[in-house]
């Protein structure tokens, strides 16, 4: 692992990103403080990356936006992996009709046009789902909604992986011995099958974070994700697109932040795969 340069770069970038975004409230100024007398200011000691169309500090919006993007992506990855593990375990261990139904469901979800579907899900009216006004306008709700809808379509990879692993593990002697000793199916799944699935799952989840960040920022870019004034990398780019003719440089930083973060997760995930792959 120490000789794996790309993975090392990925891990270092990730550590730096996590530290910077976790410490954002102490490192950076108020990301929503406007200063209309300093619009589109050039980078300076006071504003490292300048200011945006409302005179807000770009660097501080980047750090705070990163908190939101990373929190959404990590929560979604864990939720999707959890859902996929549950479905994969049930399908692989129980087999039979349950397996057939669950796998057709997985194939079905995998064969859907994802981005159009996500846009529909993101545009649903919370009022028609019986969700009250106060909850609807809260930041937690808009962010939580994104986590749930991305996880709802993102569990399929994990489910297939876990099912395949469960199928091989369940015929091993120690599982049969445990069954003979009277262990319940739940115990066998949790104690014997789950640990065998752990390392491929970690790899798949790490690799999925990059994709989730891309999807989340695309939704926010289209105006369906994190809502202004709360900063996110995606909605900062929407702002930048609106002023692309008067302030073209504005589009640079948020996209670069997304790019580097996704790259870091992909490099780290790939490295993890090499390190954990027993065939090498």
């Amino acid at each position, binding site marked *: 692992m120490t000789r794996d340069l790309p993975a090392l770069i990925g891990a270092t970038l990730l550590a730096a990103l996590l530290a910077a975004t976790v410490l954002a409230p102490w490192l950076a100024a108020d990301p929503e403080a406007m200063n209309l007398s300093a619009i589109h200011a050039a980078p300076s000691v006071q504003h490292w990356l300048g200011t945006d169309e409302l005179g807000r500090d770009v660097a501080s919006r980047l750090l705070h936006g990163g908190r939101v993007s990373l929190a959404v992506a990590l929560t979604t990855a864990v939720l999707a992996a959890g859902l996929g593990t549950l479905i994969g375990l049930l399908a692989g261990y129980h087999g039979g009709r349950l397996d057939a139904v669950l796998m057709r469901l997985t194939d079905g979800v995998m064969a859907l046009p994802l981005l159009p579907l996500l846009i529909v899900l993101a545009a649903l009216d919370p009022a028609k789902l019986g969700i009250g006004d106060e909850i609807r306008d809260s930041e937690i709700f808009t962010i939580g909604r994104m986590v749930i809808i991305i996880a709802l379509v993102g569990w399929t990879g994990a489910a297939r992986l876990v099912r395949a692993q469960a199928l091989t593990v369940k015929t091993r002697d120690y599982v049969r011995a445990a069954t003979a000793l009277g262990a319940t199916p739940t115990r066998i799944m949790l104690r014997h099958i789950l640990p065998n699935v752990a390392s491929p799952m970690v790899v798949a989840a790490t690799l999925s974070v990059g994709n989730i960040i891309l999807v989340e920022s695309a939704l926010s870019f289209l105006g369906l994700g994190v809502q202004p004034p709360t900063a996110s990398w995606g909605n900062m780019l929407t702002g930048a697109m609106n002023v692309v003719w008067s302030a073209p440089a504005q589009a640079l930083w948020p996209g670069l932040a997304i790019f580097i973060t996704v*790259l870091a997760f992909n490099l780290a995930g790939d490295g993890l795969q090499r390190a954990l792959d027993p065939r090498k």
Partner: protein
Amino acid sequence: MTGWLGSRLIQSLIVLVVMSAVIHGLMGLMPGDPIDLMIASDPHLNAADAIRLKALYGLDRPWGERYLAWIAQVLRGELGYSRLFAKPVLAIIGPALLNSLILMLSALALSLLIAVPLGIVAALRPGRALDHLINAVSFASVSLPTFWLGLMLMVVFAVLLGWLPAGGMQSLSGEASGLADSLRHMALPVATLTIAGIGQYARHTRAAMLAEAGQDYIRTAKAKGCGPARLVLRHQWRNALLPLITLLGLEFGTLFSGALITETVFGWPGMGKLIADAVMGNDFNLALTALMLATAMTLLGSVLADLLMARLDPRIKLR
């Protein structure tokens, strides 16, 4: 084989029917209501008219009835009118489909032309400098957010240099028209999709080439005295292309659903932009039809990929 095809098609049809119910149901949960929107845009209508119109269009009935009524309509070929464009849905989807096909096929052809040779070259000497370079390019390509890539290309080539138009399909004024003008408008969206697509194809090609490199037939060919160029071109890469077909099968659906983000960024009037506009503009009929078409074509793509694989690879038997 016909048995296999039949069961696959039935399976896909079941998924399609389930999805039609899901999409129809989700549409009903979108903000706004077609009649309320009509009332809001026409001051002559009052509350009594609203109730009458809702009854007329059956909007006061439960969801299940409305869904079945819609299915019956679709089967009769009635897809309804688009609220945003005030035209029949089909009259809008036709041109948008064509625009998306132009964009997607150009980008797909370009990405394959660039990525497949890159993947092959990388796999010739794994672990060497050139392989690392191509890997780095692939990683960058799959990690790029498309909308930002498009925006940056727009900033550089349209805003700063002024070489290319920033959006649309044609110049509005008559001074520049014809093929050259269309190509200039295509350049940036096609470049965006191509750059973003290279990575996955190059990575898949490389992986497939490496998987073939260890096969017996490669050793046999070498033992017969087959030269390295002939070995790669006649034997190895033909087999390595097979896994790419599965990937292209998945890509088939996107030819019909368009590139939602790239089309939105560049104002390209294709299916992707149409779906986004229809969903956000509460255009129920248009959104429903476009989404169903996208779903059906995506499902069809995976069936076609399996058929093509079986045809090209005699080791695969479809049962």
